[in-house]
């Protein structure tokens, strides 16, 4: 079926070409035929008529010679003899024309008289040679009379030739009349055929054009409908969508969601600000734009969190960039509240450890004060008393540092990313749990191979909470399972790998259950007893790290579990930021 259709289609394609070729050939043939025909006709009529004229002339001269001979027979004078000589000369000159001229050869009947006529030519020549010698007398008249009889057959031959010629001419005239009545029927037929071919070509072509036009119109309508649909979808999506011209990064189109979030007019200056921020935040993944997350200060002074992507689209027939942003402010706020709750829970859990830490400086102060009192009572040296007071002051500073740390930790996260020293943040997080680890008898091995001025971008207290969470998880893991005969130990390492900083928190507490491993970062998945954990720690950790454009992974190693956080290193601040 398909092959039949294909062959039919091929035929349809070949047909117009064949028709055009045929038409051209027919036109050329018609023209050639017309030219040849007219040429032949002209030649034919000219020759036939000339041959008739030659026969007629010969016949005429014969009759005139015969008359001259008759006059010599009646009155044999010298004048009559001379006139006869002239006539015979003329007749002699006409005879060869009958068969030797182009016109004479044309008719076979005339060409056939050649031998007979040539015999008479000889006789006429011989008589013409003798004529000047003949005297003008009766004997000459008798000789001429007998010669008239001798020339009689020539007269009949010439008569026959003339008649033949006349008969031919009659036939030719008849044909010419016929031709005139039906002028050029063959060329006309040819013209008609070629005209029909041409008309067919035009018809086939017109049909094909109509089909093509219909296809093009359908396709155009489909494209228009699709664009209309796309526009409708973009309008309906409850997210901020904007079409950006890649050449000048100007916003060309804004949907209603974008209008509600920023401004309905693409020319609003906030759009340029948002576009710049989005391009700065977007990371190229291969040739495509990837996802992006950013915070944006609106003109009203609110800070909104946005998550989305940039992608290449064809818009109004041109390649443009579509920016899709979802307002995740509420999600982020909920995240922040959860994070805060998790932090406060941690803080509560650590209250005893914090109390112990505060008790240490207080205990020292209490002793130092007792000694100072004793010195005062015994009039001791002032410098020694002053030294005691210095010790008290330094212990107060120590207590203040502990309280500052707690206060820092309890502070509500702003959700606003800043550049901060990664090393300092890790040290603060480690410092926060160090006392607890000491209390639980877990050794902390810290190896930070990163410079203090290595910066990352994010919300610092939230990042610290990520590390604290990992360390508390490690601590709880030891509580659940300890390796006998070995001091529990947790390793915290940091290093630089290319453009990223890598932080590892590793324990040797036996590792994570396989069943747990697959949903490690899912919310509400926990291996801890209800009073110990919410099951949100790692889920929050992932969302915090993701907001920093980083990655967090967990794996089991030989003796325990290892969590790895990879963060992009922030580039040097621009002059604008530094200012």
């Amino acid at each position, binding site marked *: 079926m398909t092959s039949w259709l294909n062959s039919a289609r091929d035929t349809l394609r070949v047909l117009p070409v064949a028709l055009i070729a045929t038409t051209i050939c027919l036109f050329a043939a018609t023209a050639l035929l017309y030219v040849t025909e007219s040429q032949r006709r002209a030649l034919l009529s000219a020759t036939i008529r000339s041959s008739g004229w030659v026969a007629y002339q010969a016949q005429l001269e014969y009759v005139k010679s015969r008359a001259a001979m008759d006059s010599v027979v009646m009155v044999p004078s010298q004048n009559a003899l001379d006139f006869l000589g002239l006539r015979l000369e003329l007749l002699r000159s006409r005879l060869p024309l009958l068969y030797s001229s182009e016109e004479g050869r044309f008719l076979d009947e005339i060409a056939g008289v050649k031998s007979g006529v040539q015999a008479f030519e000889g006789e006429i020549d011989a008589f013409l040679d003798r004529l000047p010698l003949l005297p003008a007398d009766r004997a000459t008249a008798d000789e001429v009379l007998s010669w008239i009889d001798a020339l009689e057959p020539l007269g009949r031959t010439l008569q026959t030739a003339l008649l033949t010629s006349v008969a031919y001419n009659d036939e030719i005239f008849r044909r010419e009349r016929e031709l005139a009545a039906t002028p050029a029927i063959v060329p006309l037929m040819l013209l008609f055929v070629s005209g029909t071919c041409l008309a067919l070509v035009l018809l086939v072509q017109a049909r094909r054009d109509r089909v093509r036009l219909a296809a093009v119109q359908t396709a155009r309508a489909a494209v228009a409908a699709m664009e209309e649909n796309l526009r409708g979808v973009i309008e309906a999506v409850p997210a901020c969508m904007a079409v950006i011209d890649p050449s000048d990064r100007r916003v060309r189109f804004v949907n209603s969601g974008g209008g509600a979030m920023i401004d309905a007019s693409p020319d609003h200056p906030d759009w340029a600000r948002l576009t710049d921020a989005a391009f700065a935040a977007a990371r190229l993944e291969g040739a495509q734009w990837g996802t992006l997350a950013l915070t944006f200060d609106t003109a009203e002074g609110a800070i909104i969190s946005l998550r989305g992507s940039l992608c290449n689209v064809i818009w109004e027939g041109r390649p443009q960039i579509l920016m899709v942003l979802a307002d995740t402010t509420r999600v982020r706020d909920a995240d922040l509240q959860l994070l805060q709750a998790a932090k406060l829970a941690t803080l509560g859990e650590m209250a005893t450890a914090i109390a112990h830490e505060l008790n240490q400086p207080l*205990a020292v102060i209490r002793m130092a004060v007792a*000694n100072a009192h004793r010195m005062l009572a015994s009039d001791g040296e002032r410098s020694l008393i002053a030294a005691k007071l210095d010790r008290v002051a330094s212990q107060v500073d120590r207590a203040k540092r502990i309280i500052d740390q707690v206060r820092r930790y309890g502070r509500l996260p702003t959700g606003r990313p800043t550049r901060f020293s990664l090393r300092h943040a890790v040290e603060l997080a480690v410092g926060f749990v160090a006392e607890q680890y000491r209390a639980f008898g877990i050794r902390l091995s810290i190896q930070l191979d990163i410079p203090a001025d290595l910066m990352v971008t994010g919300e610092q207290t939230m990042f610290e909470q990520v590390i604290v969470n990992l360390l508390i998880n490690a601590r709880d893991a030891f509580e659940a399972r300890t390796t006998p005969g070995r001091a529990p130990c947790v390793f915290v390492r940091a290093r630089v790998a290319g453009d990223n900083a890598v932080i590892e928190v590793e324990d040797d507490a036996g590792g994570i259950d396989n069943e747990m491993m697959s949903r490690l970062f899912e919310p509400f998945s926990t291996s801890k007893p209800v009073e110990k954990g919410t099951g949100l720690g790692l889920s929050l950790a992932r969302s915090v790290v993701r907001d920093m454009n980083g990655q967090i992974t967990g794996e089991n190693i030989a003796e325990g579990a290892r969590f790895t956080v990879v963060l992009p290193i922030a580039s040097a601040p621009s002059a604008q930021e530094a200012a």
Partner: protein
Amino acid sequence: MSDAPSILICDDEADLAAELGEYMSANGWIAMVATSAPDALAVLEGGVTPTCLLTDLRIAEYDGAELVTAARSLPPALQPQIFVMMTGHVVDASEAADFGVDLLYLKPIDPDAILGDICAALSRRNAGKVEG
């Protein structure tokens, strides 16, 4: 007892140990200070037998309770007479007996109270010996 009483103070908080040592010295005691449990045990095993052993509960790497147990397992001649424990932690076991010590204090503590209690315990112990 004609000789001055002696005390071995074990606390990884060096400032605290030093202040307490100074206080006890000023009150006529011979004070020795160790900042780790192994150091303190080495002193005890070295034949110096203090009248009193005062230790912090949570000491890095080596627990105060372990130190007390180790000291209790020494030959009786090498054992201090009075065991005292201090802790900055809120501990579940709030009884001195739970740790096998004579006195238990929560930080911060007035050194006068420690001294008074130790002296009282010592005189009770001595009175008991005399009676016994």
